[in-house]
């Protein structure tokens, strides 16, 4: 059964390649995309079930034993993240045909889409640091493809900045891997962890860890490295923004979670305490950013940053509640961010603008859109009983257990301001006179709403039905906090 581990990488890869051949046949591409994403989703679902039932799947690619070959490690964390990724991908696949992609659909939107999924899934599954770099490049290259697609002035300009900053951080990634290789003589993560533990993370290792942290933090858009994010995430088509917002930063934060729960865990008073600071600053500056603008897309894009702040808080406190909170929040945020990006895409398209100051009274024309936004705001801000609340509850509890009072207060205030930033859209955009806007496009939006509603339903389920999920998340957190299990499962088979 160990070959299961490679399916989440191979299925989208093959899908992408097939779709290259049919790129001119838009209708066929759409059908195939839906079909493939459903197949991939089903597989991911089965794998998750299998992993949760039977434990980690280890696949030695090419049958080369660890640590010499590239090892794929499908553990609980990887499985649920792959599953979430596929959920999002499926939602986007069903949204894309109505998203107004136009020519972009011919010019390889669908292949890029599946390449992106390939890279993201690969990054979650791989147990090899250099291979992680390669998957990063796959997903970045796919994202470059998506972001430049059919771009005008603005889009090309922002893509250029996006590409340059990511190029720099990729080079730093390779460099850091090289440094680590010199010290521990391996690129297999389990073995790195074992060897770092053996020398108690002495000397230069922590500095290398910090360099790696910054590489991931740049991708994850943590304070103070997120500058590139907000603008470049809002220029492409909403479906692309949604994919970026949901997946790219999360790969970064996943990498931090993995490396700083597995490898660099012997100097937590230095490294992980800093994370708590960074968490607080990310929350504050992120939410300030969200309040600073009247561009609804930008509001959502800025909201990525405090969310990442919440997630790293759990990594910083590094206790069972903190880590389960991080994972729960990670999954929650992937889903709700997709929904929100897709939603504001629809709002901007019916309003003909993304400037809040030019909107008003939309609820008279599109009540369903307004209520979906309202619900999303509540989910995003972590109001109970939705998914965000469970994550936040665990994170704050974890922080309290470590006596981190200040960060909890920041977290609570941030939640308020996050809610405010979304309610602002609701109040100014949807409430008001029926005649507030002179020109509102009457469009059929049901096709666009179906994926959004499904994602929101899932968010609600993740909150109300937390009993179905949390015990698994909790056991994953316990597993992550004991790196020996990971090391043994990879190296001692």
């Amino acid at each position: 059964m160990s070959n299961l581990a490679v399916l989440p990488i191979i299925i989208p890869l093959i899908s992408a390649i097939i779709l290259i051949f049919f790129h001119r046949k838009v209708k066929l591409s759409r059908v195939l995309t839906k079909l493939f994403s459903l197949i991939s989703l089903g597989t991911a679902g089965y794998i998750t079930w299998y992993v949760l039932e039977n434990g980690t799947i280890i696949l030695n690619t090419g049958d080369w034993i660890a640590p010499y070959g590239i090892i794929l490690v499908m553990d609980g964390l990887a499985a649920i993240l792959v599953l979430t990724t596929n959920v999002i991908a499926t939602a986007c696949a069903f949204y894309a045909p109505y998203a107004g992609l136009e020519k972009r659909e011919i010019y390889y939107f669908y292949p890029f889409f599946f390449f992106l999924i390939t890279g993201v899934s690969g990054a979650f599954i791989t147990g090899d640091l250099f291979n992680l770099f390669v998957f990063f490049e796959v997903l970045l290259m796919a994202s470059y493809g998506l972001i430049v697609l059919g771009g005008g002035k603005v889009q090309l300009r922002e893509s250029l900045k996006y590409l340059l900053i990511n190029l720099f951080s990729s080079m730093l990634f390779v460099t850091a891997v090289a440094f680590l290789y010199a010290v521990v003589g391996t690129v297999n993560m389990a073995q790195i962890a074992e060897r770092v533990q053996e020398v108690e993370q002495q000397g230069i290792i922590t500095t290398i860890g910090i360099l790696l942290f910054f590489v991931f933090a740049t991708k994850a858009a943590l304070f103070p490295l997120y500058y590139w994010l907000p603008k470049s995430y809002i220029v492409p088509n909403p479906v692309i923004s949604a994919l970026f917002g949901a997946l790219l930063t999360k790969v970064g934060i996943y990498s931090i979670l993995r490396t700083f729960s597995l490898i660099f865990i012997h100097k937590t008073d230095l490294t992980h305490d800093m994370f708590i600071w960074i968490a607080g600053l990310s929350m504050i500056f992120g939410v300030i950013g969200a309040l600073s603008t009247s561009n609804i897309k930008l509001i959502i894009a800025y909201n990525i940053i405090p969310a990442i702040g919440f997630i790293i808080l759990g990594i910083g406190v590094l206790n069972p509640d903190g880590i389960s909170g991080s994972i729960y929040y990670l999954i929650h945020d992937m889903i709700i961010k997709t929904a929100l990006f897709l939603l504001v895409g629809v709002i901007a398209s019916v309003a003909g603008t993304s400037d809040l100051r030019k909107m008003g009274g939309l609820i008279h024309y599109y009540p369903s859109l307004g209520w979906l936004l309202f619900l999303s705001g509540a989910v995003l801000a972590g109001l109970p009983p939705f998914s965000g609340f469970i994550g936040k509850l665990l994170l704050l509890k974890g922080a309290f257990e470590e006596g981190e009072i200040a960060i909890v207060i920041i977290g609570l205030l941030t939640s308020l301001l996050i809610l405010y930033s979304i309610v602002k859209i609701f109040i100014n955009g949807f409430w008001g006179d029926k005649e507030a806007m002179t020109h509102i496009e009457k469009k059929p939006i049901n096709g666009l709403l179906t994926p959004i509603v499904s994602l929101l339903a899932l968010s609600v389920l993740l909150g109300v039905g937390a009993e179905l999920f949390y015990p698994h998340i909790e056991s994953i957190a316990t597993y992550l906090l004991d790196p020996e299990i990971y090391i043994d499962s990879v190296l001692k088979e």
Partner: protein
Amino acid sequence: MEIITSILAGVLFATAIYNLLQKQLIRIIIGTALISHGAHILILTMGRLKAGQPPILREGISNYTDPLPQALILTSIVISFGVTSLLLVLAYRASQENNTDIMEELRGNENE
């Protein structure tokens, strides 16, 4: 010698970053090229230099230089090449659409 190549890598990084901080797009692109050279030199150095024969098996020789970094560099070179080519086309298109090759003129504003 490892120390000398480390310094070389440092210089490549420094000049790369100086170029990246320039305004003109061409210079920035040159910066990206330099930084990947720096990174590759570093990988090689980290695998130790001249520790043995080239990693091609021959009879009677048991001492080879570390082949793994070389494999990693090869992968990295190819990837960098891909990124660079895309970057060049993108830079060309972006500067054409925006009628400027000065990054500072490519700032943009909030609502567009």
